[in-house]
């Protein structure tokens, strides 16, 4: 099978797989959540589930920043973009995310001035070049992108730019993990911690998971072997009855995170009392807004924002997918009405989304693969 040996360290992977299998208690089922969409991507690209014993299930978590933006916020952004003299700027990932009246791409096609930028700093430059326009940056992402927004705001404030503002949709990963831990639908045994978010926040914020919930956490890198190694570390903890936070990705992630980045976020943003996540509902203290001190840069204060709540389309089961309750292929519209070209839900939009990862690599449920290979052998 193509996907079994497609990466260069197949021997090491098999050796790790054997050690993982040896740690499984007979009759026990293990559910491990990979929080980050980058991990989901590696898992499907390399077919890592095929290396694992049947008793281990990998559950995809909510760590795809585009996937968790609720429809109402997309509509709000669209409303902002349609205001007189506004230039809306956004990362490319956001452009296809469906709101109730279409996506940024659709609005752009109809003449709304929405521009794709690589960095919030590009947005700042557009503001400098267009002093008679009001440039709004659609800020999205977890703690990996929040420092960039924060640093850009500090720069705008230092320059005294008056035509730049931020529509802040930054979310924080820890409350989402907590919401999942508190949700009765799902019993998890451990977590693969997000790699890049942790470069900013460090490993400490996960300690409550180990301490209060008794679940091990291993912050993991993005190579296939990183992920297998991290699964091994989780299984070792479980087999020894330990629950600790460990850092498999220490070559990039410092235990205490990036202090400069955290300070920039703390200076410019504060926690919102609550924020709606697509599919997960309202989660308290789970998102950031612009601090009052920087009110002049806060699009939510400078413009009327309707703030209407929009229910997800009926057919969409992204919420279940984001919580790990459903596998993407179990959604009724997966691959039929919902594809990367015509996404109904957000998980199909971003390459970090579980549905897109499944779709792009044509993965199916392990049992289905077994059935097919058995049929072709007989």
């Amino acid at each position, binding site marked *: 099978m193509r996907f079994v040996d497609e990466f260069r360290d197949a021997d090491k992977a098999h050796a790790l797989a054997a050690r993982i299998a040896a740690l499984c208690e007979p009759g026990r089922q293990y559910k491990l959540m990979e929080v980050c969409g980058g991990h989901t991507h590696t898992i499907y690209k390399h077919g890592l589930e095929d290396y694992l014993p049947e008793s281990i299930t990998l559950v995809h978590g909510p760590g795809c920043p585009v996937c968790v933006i609720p429809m109402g916020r997309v509509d709000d952004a669209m409303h902002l973009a349609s205001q007189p003299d506004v230039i809306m700027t956004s*990362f490319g990932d956001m452009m296809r995310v469906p709101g109730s009246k279409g996506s940024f791409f659709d609005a752009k096609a109809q003449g709304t001035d929405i521009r794709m930028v*690589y*960095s*919030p700093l590009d947005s700042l430059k557009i503001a400098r070049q267009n002093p008679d326009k009001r440039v709004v940056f659609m800020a999205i992402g977890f703690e990996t992108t929040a*420092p*960039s927004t924060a640093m850009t705001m500090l720069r705008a404030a230092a320059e005294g730019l008056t035509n730049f503002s931020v529509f802040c949709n930054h979310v924080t990963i820890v409350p989402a993990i907590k919401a999942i831990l508190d949700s009765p639908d799902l019993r998890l045994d451990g977590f693969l911690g997000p790699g*890049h978010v942790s*470069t900013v926040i460090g490993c400490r914020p996960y300690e409550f998971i180990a301490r209060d919930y008794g679940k091990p956490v291993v912050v993991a890198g993005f*190579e296939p072997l990183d992920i297998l190694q991290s699964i091994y570390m989780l299984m070792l903890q479980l087999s020894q009855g330990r629950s600790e936070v460990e850092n498999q990705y220490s070559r990039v992630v410092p235990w205490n995170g990036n202090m*400069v980045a955290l300070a920039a976020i703390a200076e410019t943003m504060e926690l919102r009392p609550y924020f709606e996540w697509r599919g997960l509902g309202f989660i308290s203290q789970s998102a950031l807004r612009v601090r009052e001190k920087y009110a002049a840069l806060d699009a939510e204060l400078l413009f009327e924002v309707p703030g209407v709540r929009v229910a997800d389309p009926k057919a969409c089961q992204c919420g279940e997918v984001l919580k790990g309750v459903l596998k993407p292929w179990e959604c009724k519209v997966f691959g039929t009405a919902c594809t990367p070209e015509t996404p109904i839900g957000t998980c199909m939009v971003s390459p970090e989304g579980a549905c897109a990862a499944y779709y792009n690599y044509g993965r199916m449920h392990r049992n289905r693969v077994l059935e097919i290979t058995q049929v072709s052998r007989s």
Partner: protein
Amino acid sequence: MCLGIPGEVIEIHPEQRDLAKVNVSGVRRMVNIGLLCDDPPAPGEWVLIHVGFALSKIDEHEAAAAMEFLEGIGQAYEDEIAAFRESLIE
């Protein structure tokens, strides 16, 4: 967006010390290195860049691995590099 792209630092901006020119797969652009001001990268060192900001220093091996990961994601990576190419950070 959440995925970092590895770049090799070519030079630090002579006046604005928080900017550095980096090389990402042959594309040379400015990025902000202000988040690494506690331990700034020197020319020849590698950094992981998120939306125009270097967020961590990495070694060459890690850079190669990160690049391989990105190339593996196909279109999304091409989009990211295309966006990076368009960027005008100054």
